[in-house]
């Protein structure tokens, strides 16, 4: 929380969002600090994933949606006309719930983004490969298998490969949507460990797959319920002394 007091990396301002007239987000306002882990948690259908996907405009292609409000990245509205989507998505990386290696080898997977971005230099690509896999805590396990098909890795390795793939683009923000939902506890531990290392350099927003995970990783935690942001605060405080009754009920397992 060293960055407290500085302007937020991402500011979500009065955002409402609906799919085919069904409201998914209701006037959400949230500041996401730089170089920290922000956790969006709450029961299913609360709008966590929707909010996450608004930060890199991945919902743009869905037909029949409506949005109001603003999303600011470093103070600039990413929904302003003329925003370069490709550039935005290079700055804001995303990792999905299911590990999804693309067709091809481990190396090809990690270097997908940089190659699309036009990096051709061999040594530069090798550097990116090494750095990304190191950061995702995967290098030691795959350094002899770089040219194996990505699909031959275990589930936990595949998910860290997906994280490495996002990191290869050197994004400023990393969005993770239940990145450990399909993983066993040991792999989950490794993914969380890599997140702790990453937050020194990156702004991380994560939808955790359990309250326990939320409590373990959160610097800032935001509780979302039925499209509303109920409560937001430092993780250390929110999980111990929630201010809102609904948050307390959810954390203590009275509903959810």
């Amino acid at each position, binding site marked *: 929380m060293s960055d407290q007091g500085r302007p937020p990396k991402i500011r979500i301002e009065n955002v409402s969002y609906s799919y085919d007239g069904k409201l998914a987000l209701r006037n959400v306002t949230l500041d996401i600090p730089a170089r920290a882990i922000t956790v969006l948690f709450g029961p299913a259908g609360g709008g966590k994933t929707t909010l996450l996907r608004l930060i*890199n405009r*991945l919902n743009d292609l869905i037909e029949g949606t409506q949005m109001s409000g603003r999303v600011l990245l470093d103070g600039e509205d990413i929904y302003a006309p003329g925003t370069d989507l490709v550039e935005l*998505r290079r700055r804001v990386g995303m990792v*999905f719930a299911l590990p999804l290696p*693309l067709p091809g*080898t481990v190396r090809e997977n990690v270097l997908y*983004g940089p190659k*699309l971005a036009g990096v051709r230099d061999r040594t530069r690509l090798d550097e990116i490969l090494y750095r990304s896999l190191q950061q995702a805590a995967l290098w030691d396990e795959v350094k002899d298998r770089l040219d194996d098909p990505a699909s*031959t890795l275990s589930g936990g390795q595949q998910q860290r490969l997906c994280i490495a793939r996002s990191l290869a683009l050197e994004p400023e923000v990393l969005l993770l949507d239940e990145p450990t939902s399909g993983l066993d506890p040991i792999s989950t531990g490794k993914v969380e460990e890599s997140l702790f290392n990453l937050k020194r350099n990156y702004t991380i927003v994560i939808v955790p797959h359990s309250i326990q995970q939320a409590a373990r990783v959160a610097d800032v935690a935001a509780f979302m319920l039925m499209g509303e942001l109920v409560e937001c605060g430092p993780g250390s405080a929110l999980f111990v002394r929630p201010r809102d009754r609904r948050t307390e009920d959810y954390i203590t397992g009275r509903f959810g």
Partner: protein
Amino acid sequence: MEQMRRPRLGEFVIESLVKVAGLSSIGFVVLIFFFLLREGVPVFFEVELTNLFSTRWYPTFGLFGTLPLILGSALVTLSAIAIALPLGVVTAVFVREVAPHWAREILKPMIEVLAGIPSVVLGFFGMTLLAPVVRRMLGMPTGLTALTGALILAYMSLPTIISVAEDALDAVPKSYRDAGLALGATQWQTIWRVVVPAARSGIVTAVMLGMGRAIGETMAVMMVTGNAARMPLTLDSLFRPVRTMTATIAAEMGEVAEGSVHYHALFGIGIILFVITFILNLTAAATIFKKRRRGGLR
């Protein structure tokens, strides 16, 4: 206990019917294959191999060179695929990935209707409309050329290729598109470098099915290729008449004496065609299998 073990009569009858139906279809295929062999294999003993694989097909004079026919089929089929493959895949990408929703709803059924046009109608269309255009454009004495055949065949295999390739693209999970976009790929990069490779084996299947339709097609090809059994060896062969294996069988079968050398030779062509198609299918299956193990997806 006894009750449970004794199958009911209805069950037994239905099960037997299904079994008979399944086995008989296998049986028919085997029988056809043996018939083909029985009628065709004698030619390999009656006619010398040097004659059989020579360059002249004049059955009346005892010349049974199948090479011009094999090459004729190869030329027409490969040209047809060269035209239909890029066109078909690009159309499939357009229909599935680019066209707006309402356009897709109209295009899909229209493409499927195209597949139902009888080949003789296409042949007629090729003869009366396409051939004159080809003749005028090339300045040749005739419009009935290998190119005309290739164009008609390409047109015939397009619906199959588009339809199957579109289904393959449709089966690629939305999450792949998300992953591509999230890596900072443009929509086109996502389509060409993520979605299409992920649908690769389905697209290969589409092309193989289209090719299967093209190489086995008889009627339309016979009507538009001119049917001259000449070796298509020169560069301009594409713009001259050729004759395919299928057209030869269809055209001559009606007038040969049963059991004659010529009769056996026609079945011999059938065997050659069968072997070629078999190898093609096998290669395709092997390619798909290898790709899948190498980390392709489906």
